[in-house]
């Protein structure tokens, strides 16, 4: 190591800022996992707080919180992954076959636009559309004498709204990746199929769709790895501290954030965070192990 260090001094030096960054930003905080096993008090700090063993976890489990947060987090993420990829593949195929160059360019840009805006603006959009007094949806409903509906107090609607907003914001991004994969498919396949008399639907079904499988699998694996991490910004900006909606919309990330900012429940919040990290870690390892068995090329590491 020392010899190597001496030989490649400059390269080590160039890597140093990055190593320090991850040390401070990611590795040091791992020590703080200890909070999960304490009843945190501000006087005591890291090792001065009383040790309580697994009490925080026990409480989270007995309150039913852990179960609810897990089902919500995993449920939403599965919906995001399945619907998100499905829609992106569908749109990418449509867009790739469209002939009008200008139309193609403009619509692709427009669909990519929501990816660039902040989640705060997303919350402004939601407010503009769904608030009780002046929301756009209620304005329209009132015109048909069907409203107004108190959407911000109706939990089940938000299950759909969150998914729709997710799709709305991310469609353009994942579509670009699939479009890139489609562009990479050799024209010869399509030519051959055309000569064999395959129509456009058959060409898509028997060539494009199978050829997208590697891209799909890679994206799927990446998203499975972070299935316990929610889209914190999305949920928090749409729901905020609206307690009425928690049952349908609370995920681990929002729970942890609130525990830190609102209720100051340090021990509990750390416990929930640790559970999230461990659960996710075990999940990735399992998935990766299975993939490795099935097809080594697709394994993450």
């Amino acid at each position, binding site marked *: 190591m020392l010899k190597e260090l001496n030989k490649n001094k400059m390269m080590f030096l160039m890597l140093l800022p990055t190593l320090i960054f991850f040390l401070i930003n*990611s590795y040091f905080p791992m020590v703080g996992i200890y909070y999960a096993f304490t009843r945190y008090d501000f006087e005591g700090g890291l090792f001065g707080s009383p040790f309580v063993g697994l009490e925080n976890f026990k409480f989270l489990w007995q309150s039913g919180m852990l179960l609810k947060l897990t089902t919500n987090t995993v449920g939403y993420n599965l919906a995001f992954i399945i619907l998100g990829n499905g829609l992106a593949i569908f749109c990418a195929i449509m867009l790739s076959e469209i002939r009008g160059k200008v139309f193609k360019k403009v619509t692709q840009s427009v669909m990519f636009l929501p990816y660039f805006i902040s989640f705060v603006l997303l919350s402004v959009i939601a407010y503009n559309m769904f608030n009780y007094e002046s929301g756009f949806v209620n304005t329209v409903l009132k015109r048909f004498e069907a409203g107004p509906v108190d959407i911000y107090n109706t939990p089940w609607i938000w299950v759909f709204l969150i998914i729709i907003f997710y799709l709305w914001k991310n469609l353009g991004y994942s579509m670009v990746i699939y479009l890139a994969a489609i562009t990479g498919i050799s024209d010869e396949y399509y030519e051959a199929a055309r000569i064999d008399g395959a129509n456009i639907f058959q060409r898509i079904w028997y060539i494009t769709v199978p050829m997208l499988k590697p891209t799909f699998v890679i994206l799927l694996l990446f998203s499975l790895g972070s299935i316990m991490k929610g889209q914190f910004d999305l949920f928090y900006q749409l729901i905020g501290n609206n307690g009425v909606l928690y049952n349908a919309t609370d995920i681990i990330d929002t729970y942890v954030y609130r525990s830190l900012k609102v209720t100051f429940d340090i021990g509990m919040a750390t416990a929930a965070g640790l559970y999230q990290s461990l659960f996710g870690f075990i999940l990735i390892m399992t998935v990766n192990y299975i993939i490795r068995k099935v097809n080594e090329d697709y394994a993450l590491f």
Partner: protein
Amino acid sequence: MHTRARDSEFTMLFQVIAYTFILFLSIICLVPFLLILSGSFSSNESIVRDGYHLFPTDFSLEGYKMVFKFPTQVLKAYGVTVFTTVVGTALGLFFITMAGFVLQRKDFKYRNTFSFFIYFTTLFGGGLVPWYIMLANYFNLTDTYTVLIFPGLMTPFLIILMKNFIRSAVPDELIEFAKIDGANDFRIYFSVVLNLAMPGIATVGLFLALGYWNDWFTSSLFINNPDMYQLQFYLYNTMNTITFIDQMAIGTGITLSQDVPTESTKMAMAIIVTGPILFLYPFVQRYFVRGLTIGAVKG
């Protein structure tokens, strides 16, 4: 002959479906922006009375006038965001490109060890709370510019993207040649790699800049001083409280009457905060697409 005619019919049908569907989705992507724009140009009374519309029913600039009546707060938030975006993006790019360059060098023995050191942080972490307590209590970063910049400097994803990009853009032989000419590693990085990796740098830079510009989370955790709020957090506050009006009133000694145009002001604020992105979007979008394309194909 028969199949050929059928084929063109199918193609026709497909084109109709595709055009309709894509057009429909594009409109859905665009409408929310139109709603905000329309709201920002409507008078507050018309919004309170009739609600938000696709097009302003009662055109008015009072929302914008309201925001710029006491411009100090907005301008300060703009200043903070522009500063952190520029400094954060520049620093982040510098570190990420150097790391990407080193990690893709085949003659760097520990490249896999260090790559895993970086990648591991996506698998397992301490979580939000230990991270927050460490930065706030042990590094004392509350109410500093450092905390607004530091956490966003890099992500494992961006480093991997850059590593792949440099590997595909810079041939190993070129680095060998430069070495024989007596250039050291930093020299090679600075005068050879940076030039060849421009599209990758543009992409990663855009990711970084977007992250900084859209950040509200760091302010919400670490910043108590309103003068240091990021732009997005300022908008967030505007949306959630009307305290900003009180603050402006306190700051200027003017008490505001009841008919403050809050609804249209909120929308005007949203437009002002998002403006630069909407304005720059047509120019930066194609870099994003190009960079993502290369990064995605390489994995």
